[in-house]
């Protein structure tokens, strides 16, 4: 039976001088007990659809037309009060950012109880019992219901919101990017939890995400949105295995995967301008297959016979041919630079046992007793080296110290021990008066392109500022700025020079941030999660850009991320970090395909697969990383390790415990080569099955 039926939904936002057509005639329906996915890049209108369903549109958003039928009642015709009764009782919501979607000054238990009290007439004691029960269901300690949100980690907060969504056993749960911003391992656990619970409760799920992989693993049906239009719709197996719409093909190809030999292909261009109601196909200006017909009208959804599969494309009948072409980067007008592994140059930066410990504050009493203070060992004995023209990837969960490592390498934090040498000189050399020189040669790009650019400066000023500071190429500033902007793909540069950051898209902003770092022609670049806030196609663009820079400009790059899939795409070598230490390091192919350390295996297995037909063996890690202040003796990973034995607890394995020059791991019982722990990563039975054109069709 149909639970939710959305028909011809149209939502607009009124801004000061124009109307944004965010959702244009979207229709889909969800049956009872079905998991439905809404996928698309930012700006595709997917969140707007959810907000319209829940009546949570911001003040300037209006539902222009269309019907939303839930269980036979038209939600649009309800009064506010009637609608409030349905919210949570029948439709619950798991919000996007668990970090700030819980009320900071209300205990987590109270927030859940509040949802119960609003809809049910129950006693406080009963509500509390229910909250405890819910905490148990989502895997949280029921004794913690009186704690406040800030006492929980990001993943646990997301569990709290899931518990809240389950409180009244709703028929439909709408989850808006429930795992964005969480690292892979936590994401994997959360998805596993949602699926497990949802199966038990037999409710439907509407999952909104830009990660096709997550949908492929969890959903039965999906709609792919672009520019507020449904581009393709149907069962996940059909749509993702045999896409018939060029946009879906592009989106799928740009999703980086660990075990894929091909470079991901990004869709060039940027999302459409929605200030007018679309007349042509919304994807026309980015579509390599566009014909005249596409410019005339947006195609209706075409029902593919005998399959649960609809696609909005004028050339849907030629889908098989298009699909073959779509794999070729040249189709998308991207020059195929080939996989020329350029020679790696000499070592530019080297660390030896690098340490960054933060002292914990002490009580007066223990200071008086001259007790040793506790240290947070954020970086604890890291030995790495980066060569010119090489990209070194550093991966790890949140809190493993990878960002601190990056900052210490950039000398933004003072090392508390060990050695760091750059260009043959020790870091002390730079700290004693030569910091300016270091700052010119080594640059860092930060995570958030929205906060790291001064909003009151034009692009010209932002990119030109380092030149003034370092008195570099000051006689040809303008030329240097233009050159750099073009290098990072902001062409024509003149168009961007006088824009302010808020006028640029996320991808463009991050490019400006990269340009700012490159304008000084550095020898070394540290990128701290530069792509984590970007959409897939933009992410791939940035990765390709960095890869290209390393090859052509002779720069050494350290790329820090929790996203192994993008790391394997961009890096030459990969280092896996756990609690301040490097536990595995080596050439990217060997680490990704034949991991030695059990932790690496579980990280690799946590990345979702975009191919719905692939089954992946999950290695769910128990618990959270231990307290970095009070580390267990022996191997730090032992408490969570499935293979830990007595000897692991006794002494700590060194990084060269196993392996050779090109692949080292700190483990006594490494996964032996050729017998990979994560089967999905290297499953011989599915050779690049995600690219298989042969299935179906």
């Amino acid at each position, binding site marked *: 039976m149909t639970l939710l039926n959305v028909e011809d939904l149209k939502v607009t936002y009124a801004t000061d001088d124009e109307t944004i057509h965010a959702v244009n005639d979207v229709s889909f329906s969800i049956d009872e007990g079905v998991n439905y996915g809404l996928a698309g890049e930012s700006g595709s209108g997917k969140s707007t659809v959810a907000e319209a369903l*829940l009546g*949570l549109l*911001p003040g300037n958003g209006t539902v222009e037309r269309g019907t939303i039928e839930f269980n036979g009642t038209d939600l649009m015709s309800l009064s506010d*009060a009637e609608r*409030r*009764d*349905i*919210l*949570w*009782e029948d439709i*619950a*919501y798991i*919000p*996007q*950012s668990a970090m*700030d*979607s*819980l*009320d*900071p*000054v*209300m*205990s987590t238990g109270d927030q859940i109880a*509040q*949802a119960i009290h*609003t*809809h049910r007439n129950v006693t406080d004691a009963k509500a509390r019992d229910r909250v405890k029960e819910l905490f148990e269901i989502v895997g949280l300690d029921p004794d913690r219901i009186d704690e*406040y949100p*800030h006492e929980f980690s990001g993943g646990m907060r997301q569990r709290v*919101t899931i518990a*809240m969504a389950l409180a009244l056993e709703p028929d439909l749960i709408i989850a808006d990017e429930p795992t964005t911003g969480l690292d892979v391992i936590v994401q994997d656990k959360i998805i596993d939890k949602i699926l497990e619970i949802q199966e038990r409760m037999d409710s439907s799920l509407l999952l909104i995400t830009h990660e096709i992989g997550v949908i492929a693993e969890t959903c039965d049906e999906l709609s792919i949105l672009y520019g507020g239009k449904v581009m393709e719709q149907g069962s996940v197996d059909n749509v993702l295995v045999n896409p018939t719409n060029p946009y879906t093909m592009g989106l799928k190809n740009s999703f980086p995967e660990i075990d894929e030999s091909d470079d991901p292909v990004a869709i060039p261009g940027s999302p459409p301008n929605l200030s007018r109601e679309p007349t042509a196909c919304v994807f026309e200006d980015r579509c390599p297959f566009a014909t005249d017909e596409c410019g005339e009208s947006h195609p209706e959804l075409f029902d593919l016979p005998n399959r649960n599969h609809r696609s909005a494309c004028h050339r849907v009948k030629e889908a098989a041919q298009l699909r073959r072409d779509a794999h070729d980067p040249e189709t998308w007008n991207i020059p195929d630079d080939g996989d020329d592994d350029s020679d790696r140059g000499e070592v530019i930066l080297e660390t030896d046992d690098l340490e960054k410990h933060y002292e914990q*504050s*002490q*009580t007066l009493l223990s*200071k008086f007793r001259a007790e040793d203070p506790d240290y947070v060992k954020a970086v604890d004995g890291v030995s790495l080296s980066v060569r010119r023209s090489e990209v070194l990837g550093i991966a790890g969960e949140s809190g493993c110290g990878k960002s601190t490592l990056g900052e210490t390498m950039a000398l933004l934090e003072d090392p508390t021990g060990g050695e760091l040498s750059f260009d043959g000189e020790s870091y002390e050399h730079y700290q004693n008066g030569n910091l300016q020189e270091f700052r010119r040669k080594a640059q860092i790009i930060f995570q958030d392109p929205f906060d790291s650019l001064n909003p009151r400066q034009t692009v010209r000023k932002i990119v030109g500022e380092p030149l003034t500071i370092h008195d570099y190429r000051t006689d040809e500033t303008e030329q240097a700025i233009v050159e750099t902007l073009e290098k990072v793909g902001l062409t024509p540069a003149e168009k961007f020079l006088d824009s302010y950051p808020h006028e640029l898209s996320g991808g463009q902003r991050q490019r400006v941030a990269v340009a700012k770092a490159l304008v000084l022609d550095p020898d070394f670049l540290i990128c701290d999660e530069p792509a984590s806030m970007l959409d897939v196609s933009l992410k791939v663009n940035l990765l390709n850009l960095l890869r290209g820079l390393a090859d052509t400009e002779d720069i050494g790059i350290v790329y820090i991320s929790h996203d192994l899939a993008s790391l394997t795409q961009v890096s030459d070598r990969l280092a896996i970090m756990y609690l301040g230490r490097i536990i595995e390091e080596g050439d990217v192919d060997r680490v990704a395909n034949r991991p030695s350390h059990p932790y690496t295996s579980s990280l690799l297995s946590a990345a979702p697969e975009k191919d719905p037909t692939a089954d992946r063996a999950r290695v769910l890690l128990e618990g959270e990383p231990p307290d970095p202040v009070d580390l267990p003796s022996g191997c730090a990973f032992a408490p969570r390790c499935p293979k830990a034995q007595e000897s692991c607890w006794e002494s700590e394995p060194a990084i060269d415990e196993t392996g050779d020059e090109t692949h080292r791991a700190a483990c006594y019982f490494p996964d032996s080569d050729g017998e990979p722990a994560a089967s999905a990563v290297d499953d011989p039975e599915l050779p690049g099955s995600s690219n298989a054109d042969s299935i179906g069709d």
Partner: protein
Amino acid sequence: MTKFQRFLLKRLAISVLLTLIAVSVIFVVLRLLPGSPFEALVTSGNLNQAQIDEIRAMYGLDEPMWKQYINYLGSLLTFQFGYSILRSQPVWEVLEPRLINSLILLVPALVTTAVLSSVLGMYAGWNRGSRLEKFSIVSTTLLRSTPVFITAIFFIIVFAYNLEIVPALGMRSIRATPDGYLETFVSLDFLHHYILPFTVAVLYYSGDFLLLARNGVVEKRGSEFLKLHRAKGLSEMEQLARAGRNSMLPILTYFTLRLGMIFQGLILLEVVFSWPGIGRELVLAIQQQDYPLVQAAVFIMALAVIIANLTADVLYAYFDPTVSTNGGGSA
């Protein structure tokens, strides 16, 4: 010892230290002023040197500075404020009624305005862009930026002289001879005199609270947790209550600070309304260099501000669970 107790102890120690510093500053500054309390008597030529010395000795002013300081600290910290030179009365007898008069006017005014303007401000912030919001901002900003004596005089002109609803000056009518606080304050006559200065004080303080509350709610309005509250099916007012609760901290800070500062009275207001408050008395005492009176008054004020700060810290920990009570870093 729990974390909170440690935190409290630390804050208390800091407060004591601050109090000591404050009273020392008062001591030094007063003695840096030119002249002495007996200047007037000396210049009028009615006293000879021997008499002057005698009086100075009586007040202990002939002793060396450090000894005066020790005596001063000792007496102050045991709440012995000495004898007013100007009024020939024990200092506390001078200060107490005036302090009470100031507090009885200003504390209710502050509490009233804190509650009313904050609620109004939150409502205005929630309905951003509404007429109510614009009007409330303009009017309270106007009231806040006009010097209080202008507003007060304006109110006196309108309500006392033109409409003759309330008396213009004083706390009680001239003929009243009340005995004790109860008789002074519990009477219609007092209420009659009270309304006008009370209203002016309420209006004067209202702007700050209104703007603080409004800005807090405006800032919280688009936040994710309110969206989740809304999705849970909370009504508009329940959501506003959560937004308000989340923007309490600045209001709380401001309220406790103001509460501490009330012990200084509102000098201009007291002068315009001839309200026998502590502010007026202090100005007079400084003019006359009445050391004991000024010292005691400033001590009480400093103490009040310090205690208010301490209260704010403790309330913080209560109202915002994310405020860390271990003081951050080592002190």
